[in-house]
């Protein structure tokens, strides 16, 4: 249960720079309590609290005065939104572009590690600068044309306008069960596609994976699946994403993607007999193209998953910070 004061404090703190928050929180709480005490004669404690908040006024205005920023391009009305969105967008878009371009260069025949990394970093830097520039320009225009995501109602501010303090996302049991089920499903699918040999070309059935690789890949994937299940259970018990979970999630993602991408690059993942049969059927290097696309898709999915973990951890830490 959050009180009006909690909501007020949250509304002020969200709009001031992070380093000021810890200092300001006890200060604002003390000010509200003092003002409420002064209004205590007027009726119920709730009425006194309301009167105290009305006296302190619109939390955005208070925050803007506390923040004391000299903002010429983007004013205090839009600045918090600009900061919030840019901090959210950059860490998602930049790595995806960098990794995608790096992967494309690699598959396009850039065999030298140096050139792949250079292309990747160059693209990431470019898109970061471009994104920040155009994004800021849009906000600068919005600042000057008066358009706003927060419409000015012209009504005096009242405590009823206070936003609700968002509760950190509680992971549902369903999500945990789904990710455990998915891990088991993938493992079973891998085993099935290898042992039941459902791939049939010209009357001959083939196992999907290179037998030499399969001898250890099975155990590796099985171990990884167990770890993923433990991770899902641990995450469910903890109830929400933390930085530690985001790091473990990243390690697990890389532990899956790195060997698979390496095997694809070494032509050691897929059964060579199957490759020969498929290429003969398609009359060309059909399998090479398919595996390049597969590698790219795996790289993108794992990147998104890793970034998403950090984004959730960041959101949790952000939600917990202002309310202590």
């Amino acid at each position, binding site marked *: 249960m959050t009180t009006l004061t909690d909501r007020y404090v949250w509304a002020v703190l969200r709009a001031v720079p992070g380093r000021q928050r810890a200092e300001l929180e006890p200060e604002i709480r*003390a000010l509200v309590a003092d003002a409420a005490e002064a209004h205590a004669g007027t009726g119920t404690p709730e009425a006194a609290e309301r009167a105290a908040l009305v006296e302190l006024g*619109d939390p955005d205005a208070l925050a803007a005065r506390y923040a004391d920023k000299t903002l010429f391009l983007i004013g205090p009305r839009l600045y918090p939104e600009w900061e919030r969105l840019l901090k959210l967008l950059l860490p998602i878009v930049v790595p995806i572009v960098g990794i995608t371009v790096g992967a494309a260069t690699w598959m396009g025949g850039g065999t030298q590690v140096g050139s792949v990394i250079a292309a990747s970093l160059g693209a990431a830097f470019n898109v970061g600068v471009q994104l920040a520039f155009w994004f800021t320009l849009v906000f600068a225009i919005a600042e000057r044309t008066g358009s706003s995501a927060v419409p000015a109602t012209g009504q005096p501010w009242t405590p009823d306008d206070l936003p609700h303090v968002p509760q950190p996302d509680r992971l549902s049991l369903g999500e945990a069960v789904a990710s455990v089920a998915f891990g088991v499903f993938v493992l079973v699918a891998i085993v099935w596609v290898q042992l039941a040999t459902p791939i049939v070309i010209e009357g001959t059935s083939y196992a999907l994976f290179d037998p030499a690789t399969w001898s250890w890949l099975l155990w590796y994937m099985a171990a990884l699946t167990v770890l993923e299940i433990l991770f899902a259970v641990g995450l469910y018990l903890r109830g929400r994403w933390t930085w530690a979970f985001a790091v473990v999630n990243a390690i697990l993602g890389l532990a899956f993607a790195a060997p698979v991408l390496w095997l694809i690059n070494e032509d050691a993942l897929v059964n060579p007999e199957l490759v020969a049969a498929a290429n003969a059927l398609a009359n060309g290097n059909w399998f090479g193209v398919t595996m390049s696309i597969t590698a790219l898709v795996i790289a993108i999915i794992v990147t998104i998953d890793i970034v998403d973990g950090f984004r959730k951890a960041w959101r949790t830490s952000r939600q917990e910070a202002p309310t202590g």
Partner: protein
Amino acid sequence: MDFDEILSGGQQELRRGTVVLACLLLLREPGYGYALLDRLRELGFTVDANTLYPLLRRLEGQGLLASEWNTQEARPRKFYRISPDGERLSAALLADWARMDASLRRLAEGDMG
């Protein structure tokens, strides 16, 4: 625009800056935010809570005030008091105010100097 509106605008401009001086002078005795707000209002300084509190923080940041959390009472409160730099500034501003007051009086009495 009616006269009252113009008057309140003029008063606002005239009083801007006097709140800083009044705060510095009042805080020669340690005080906390809400008590200071009350005291200023009693003295006829019209100041909003959401102006005063950030102002106190700014003055502290400029080294004109020092602060301390008092945890001996029922609730913790942040007490401010004036610093040596604040003393110097308030003395200089007060002298400035006295000069302007004297000049305005002379003008009002028709002595165009």
